[in-house]
């Protein structure tokens, strides 16, 4: 096969290749595009299409029980959501849960990591204990804690009674139900944060502590001046993971209280679930999901900016 005579491009002095030649004998740039194409298509199908469909659905009054009709309602669903006090309640609960459990899990996780970092003769039982809560499925953790907090048969009320106090109806009052849910979430997620922080702690060289001790630093000063500053990257990583997951809190409140006494422990994810799966109201559910997406993006943007600054 004879090679085709290249035509001369008048704008540049480079000979212009025909498309066939571009693919048969690609340059590095074209090769890169070709190799990325399947992955991009895959990503588009799995990520972009559902989100686009979600936004599309939010403009219609689409219900499972509505049969085939799905009237176009433009922004009516959004207006409904923004004036719906159940939505604001769920949003507030989500924000509250995020703040409480992220800070709580960080503190507990840090304590666990410091404990796990002590020089033990046999290390694996400690690591295992740290790993188990994280390995347990969320729904199991929720159901177990629901039994712990059960008024009649729960372990917590058993201890409370033995210590001489009156037992509380934990899951029946909004305040205590919310506290119970937060306790369960902190228990579950602190082990994950503990693992990340443990990895960070292990990377701090012993020589720094020895040097600090030589300089006369107390244990607390060592912690403040050596441990914490060098742990900051791990803390940031743990915070990002924990915050994004906390915004999506669903499993534990769902299995513990189903949204608690009159929506007291209902998070955004639970509201979306009940609207879409229980009511079959796909249009409104999509609207709520889009709003939750916006909130998540906003939080992620804050973290990303923080990371970029580093």
């Amino acid at each position, binding site marked *: 096969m004879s090679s085709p005579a290249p035509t001369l491009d008048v704008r540049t002095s480079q000979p212009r290749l025909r498309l066939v030649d571009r693919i048969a004998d690609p340059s590095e740039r074209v090769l890169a595009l070709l190799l990325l194409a399947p992955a991009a298509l895959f990503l588009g199908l799995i990520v972009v299409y559902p989100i686009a469909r979600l936004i599309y659905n939010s403009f219609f009054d689409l219900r499972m029980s509505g049969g085939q009709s799905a009237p176009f309602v433009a922004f009516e669903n959004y207006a409904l959501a923004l004036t719906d006090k159940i939505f604001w309640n769920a949003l507030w609960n989500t924000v509250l849960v995020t703040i409480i459990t992220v800070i709580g899990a960080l503190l507990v996780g840090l304590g666990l990591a410091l404990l796990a970092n002590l020089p033990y003769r046999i290390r694996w039982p400690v690591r295992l204990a740290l790993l188990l809560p994280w390995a347990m499925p969320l729904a199991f953790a929720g159901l177990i804690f629901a039994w712990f907090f059960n008024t009649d048969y729960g372990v917590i009320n058993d201890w409370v009674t033995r210590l001489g106090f009156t037992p509380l109806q934990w899951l029946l009052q909004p305040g205590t139900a919310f506290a119970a849910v937060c306790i369960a979430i902190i228990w579950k997620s602190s082990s994950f944060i503990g693992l990340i922080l443990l990895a960070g702690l292990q990377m701090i060289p012993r020589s720094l502590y020895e040097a600090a001790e030589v300089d006369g630093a107390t244990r607390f000063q060592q912690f403040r001046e050596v441990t914490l500053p060098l742990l900051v990257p791990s803390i940031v990583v743990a915070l990002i993971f924990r915050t994004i997951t906390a915004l999506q809190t669903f499993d534990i409140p769902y299995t513990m209280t189903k949204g608690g006494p009159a929506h*007291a422990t209902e998070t955004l994810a639970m509201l979306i679930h009940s609207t879409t799966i229980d009511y079959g109201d796909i249009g409104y559910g999509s609207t709520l999901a889009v709003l939750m997406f916006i909130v998540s993006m906003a939080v992620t943007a804050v973290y990303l900016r923080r990371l970029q600054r580093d």
Partner: protein
Amino acid sequence: MNKRLRFVIVVTAWLAVAALPLAHAETVLHVFAGGPQQRTDLTRKMFDEYEKRNPGVKVTLESGGATSELQRQYLSTVLGAKDSTLDVLILDIINPAQYYAAGWIEPLDQYLGVKDAKSYMSQYLPAYATADVIDGKIVALPDFADSMFLYYRKDLLDKYGVKPPTTWDDLATVSQKIQQGEKRPNLQGLSFQGAPIEGAVCTFLLPYWSQGKDYQAGIKLDKPAAVRGLDMWLGMVDKGVAKKNIAEVKTGDTVNEFMAGDVIFAINWGFAWDLFQTDPHTKVKGAVGVAKLPAMRGGQSATCIGGWQWSVSAFSKNKAEAAKLVKFLSSPEVSKYLAVNGSLLPVYANVYSDKDVLKANPWYGLALPVVESAKSRPVTSRYAEVSDVVRTQTSAALARVNKPEATVDEIDSRLSRVMR
């Protein structure tokens, strides 16, 4: 071996393996048969009987969902995805309207060879004829009937020389008398369902209906009557008749606590009788009486109609076979079997007076008129929403999170568009 021959061998082997399922001429029907309260163990025995009579058909049973609304959520996911893995489904009485509107269940008229739906359904109790016929088409066939009764400890009432109460006030008085006499701190006077489960909708509506009111699409909620109903339940808690954490009690909890001998009066469904008599853990065998539910002051006794139906999934690949199975499951023979072995109320009026059935369930004499006059929860294609609002608000009111007036206002305003 050359390349071509190898290619042919591989492809033929692959095709042979792929065609294997087709060589099996058996029809397999997958049935979602509910949870423990639908007695899936008895259903399995019925399936075994059907398989014996219909060689070439295998029936697999899938169970799940501890409560009605959990089953509804599960089926919403499966049917919403147009999944064809389920052929036959069990539905609570409140669901056929919603499921038919969503296009999830298949009308059975053509498979049953029925021209006049009304006359075919007249063999069943009227409530089920109404629930299972939508737009003039038969969308489900009844499995067993159900309604709520007042179970009581015959032995305790006899000991204190009192008769079963006919009003809620009476019940509170009788209860307090017995509780004071027995001096057991964990003896509950009355157990009913306050948890935010489907049954809580009935808890809300029982005293409401008792005052002669109704709640359906197009009928406005009578707020003072609804408030009086909630006040009645809260009064039971205040008098120490019902336990303080009544908002945690589900159907199964009432059954377990009554079975353990810790409850004098229990509000529950028909299936509970069999458990009280035959469950290995029961401590109340032979000491249980059944009565109509008490009435509100100046009102009539009213109860909630329940009951379960079989329907064919619109996405099933074996609709004709599935319809045949459904017809078998709602036959008088199966109805009698379920009544004798599980105290599941029959859907045929004449089965109530069958002597074998009466031997197993001596109280069925009073059961038939109760079931025939039982009232229906709101019939609407958006029932899931109605149920969610009523049950969560009622449970919150029973937990004293909101006052009854605020609760009723909330229910009314949230459902005003749905119940128009």
